[in-house]
C-alpha cells in the first residue's frame, strides 16, 4: 500500500530526520510555548471551574451539607486544640525548646493538566521567577500532591503522586511500618514491599517517612482501602486512597526549603 520510489524515499528520510531533530529539541520549544499559552490556559481553567460547578451542582450541594457539619465539629476541635497549643507553648518556654521553622511555601494556581492518559501532571502559574525549581515538594492543606519536574520562568509542571514515575518512602502512622508508595495512573496509589507480617489495616493513615529526597516527614498521603498479596507471593501491597482529590485540585503550595 505504501510504496516509495527512490526520490520519495530520500524525501521521506529527510523528513524523518527533521522530525527526529525537532522531537529532540522539544525542551527548547517548551518554554516559549508554555509562556505563550499561560493566559488562555488560565482563562480556560476558569471556564472548567464554572462548568464543573454546573455539572456537579447536586453533588456539591450534598457535599456542602456534609462539610457544614464537619466545620461545626472542627470548630469545636480547634477550640480544644487551642487550649492544648497554649499549654504546649508554655511548656516549650519552660523547657527552652527552639522554635522549629515552619515551611516556606509559594501558592500556585493550576492552569493546565496532562495532555494524555499516560502521565499525571499539572501545570501551575508560578515558575523559577518565584523561586520554584525542579524536585521541590508540592502540597495542599490536605496533604502531599507531588513534585516539581519542570520549570520555566513563569510556569512549572508538577508530577502528581498518582503518576507511575512518582514514588516516595512512606510509613503507616499507627504501626510505623515503612513502605514505598507509587502511582497507578488511577484513583488509588499503591504501597509496595510490605513484609508478609506487616501490621497494616484498612483505614490506616499513610504519611511520608522523610527518608526520600526533599519530602518532609509526616505529610499526609492517604488511607489504606485494600490489602493484598504481591504476585510473587513474597510481600504484601496496600491500595491507598489519596487524601487530596487529584482530579479537582485548583490551588497548590510548593515548599521552598
Amino acid at each position, binding site marked *: 500500500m505504501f510504496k516509495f520510489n527512490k526520490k520519495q524515499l530520500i524525501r521521506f528520510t529527510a*523528513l524523518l530526520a527533521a522530525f527526529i531533530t525537532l522531537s529532540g529539541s522539544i525542551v527548547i520549544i517548551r518554554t516559549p510555548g508554555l509562556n505563550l499559552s499561560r493566559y488562555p490556559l488560565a482563562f480556560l481553567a476558569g471556564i472548567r471551574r464554572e462548568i464543573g460547578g454546573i455539572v456537579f451542582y447536586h453533588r456539591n450541594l450534598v457535599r456542602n451539607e456534609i462539610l457544614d457539619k464537619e466545620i461545626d465539629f472542627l470548630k469545636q476541635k480547634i477550640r480544644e486544640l487551642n487550649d492544648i497549643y497554649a499549654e504546649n507553648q508554655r511548656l516549650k518556654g519552660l523547657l527552652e525548646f527552639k522554635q522549629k521553622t515552619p515551611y516556606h511555601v509559594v501558592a500556585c494556581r493550576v492552569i493546565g493538566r496532562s495532555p494524555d492518559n*499516560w502521565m499525571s501532571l499539572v501545570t501551575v502559574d508560578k515558575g523559577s521567577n518565584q523561586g520554584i525549581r525542579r524536585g521541590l515538594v508540592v502540597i495542599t492543606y490536605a496533604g502531599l500532591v507531588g513534585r516539581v519536574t519542570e520549570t520555566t520562568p513563569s510556569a512549572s509542571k508538577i508530577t502528581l503522586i498518582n503518576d507511575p514515575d512518582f514514588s516516595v518512602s512512606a510509613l503507616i502512622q499507627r504501626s510505623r511500618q515503612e513502605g514505598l508508595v507509587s502511582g497507578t495512573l488511577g484513583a488509588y496509589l499503591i504501597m509496595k514491599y510490605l513484609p508478609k507480617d506487616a501490621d497494616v489495616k484498612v483505614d490506616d493513615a499513610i504519611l511520608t517517612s522523610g527518608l526520600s529526597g526533599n519530602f518532609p516527614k509526616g505529610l499526609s498521603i492517604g488511607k489504606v482501602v485494600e490489602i493484598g498479596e504481591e504476585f510473587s507471593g513474597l510481600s504484601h501491597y496496600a491500595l491507598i486512597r489519596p487524601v487530596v482529590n487529584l482530579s479537582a485540585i485548583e490551588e497548590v503550595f510548593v515548599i521552598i526549603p
Partner: protein
Amino acid sequence: MRGILYVPFIILLGLFQVSVLDICKVWNVKPDLLLVGMAACGVYTSSAWALSLGLLAGLWKDIFSAGPFGVNTLLFSLWSLALVKLARKISIDNYIIFAGTIAVITALDAILTRLVFLYFGKVVSLGIFLRILVLETAYTAAASVPLFSLAKMIHEKSR
C-alpha cells in the same frame, strides 16, 4: 491556503485537551482530541498542510507533556503522513471509516508511546496499560465523530 483555517482549530483543541476536557474523564481516561483534530484536518487539506498540521498538533501536545523527548511531534507527523498516503487509496470521508481509522491510530499511538517511555525507564504495569489502551481507543473513536463534523463544517464554510 485553506489549511491555515485549521491552525486555530488545532490550537484550541490542544488548550481544551489540557483544561476543560478533564471534566469528561471516564475512569480517569480522556479522549485524544489533538489526534482526532490532526486526522480530521488531514482529510480536508493538501498533503503539505496535513503534514504541517500533524507536526503542529504533535508539538502542541509535547509542550504540555513532560520528558526530554518530543515523542508526539515525531509520531503525529508520521501518522499524518500515513493518513495522507491512506487517503489516496481509500476514502476516509465517512464517519464510520474515520472512527475506525482513529481507533487503529489511537491504539498504535498508545503502544508506540509506551515503548518509547519504556526505553526512557518509565514503566506502566500491563493491567493499567491495557485499561488505558482499551478505554482511550474507544473514547477517542467516539469523540472523533463530532470533531469530524466540525472539521467538515469548516471545510464547507471555507469553500
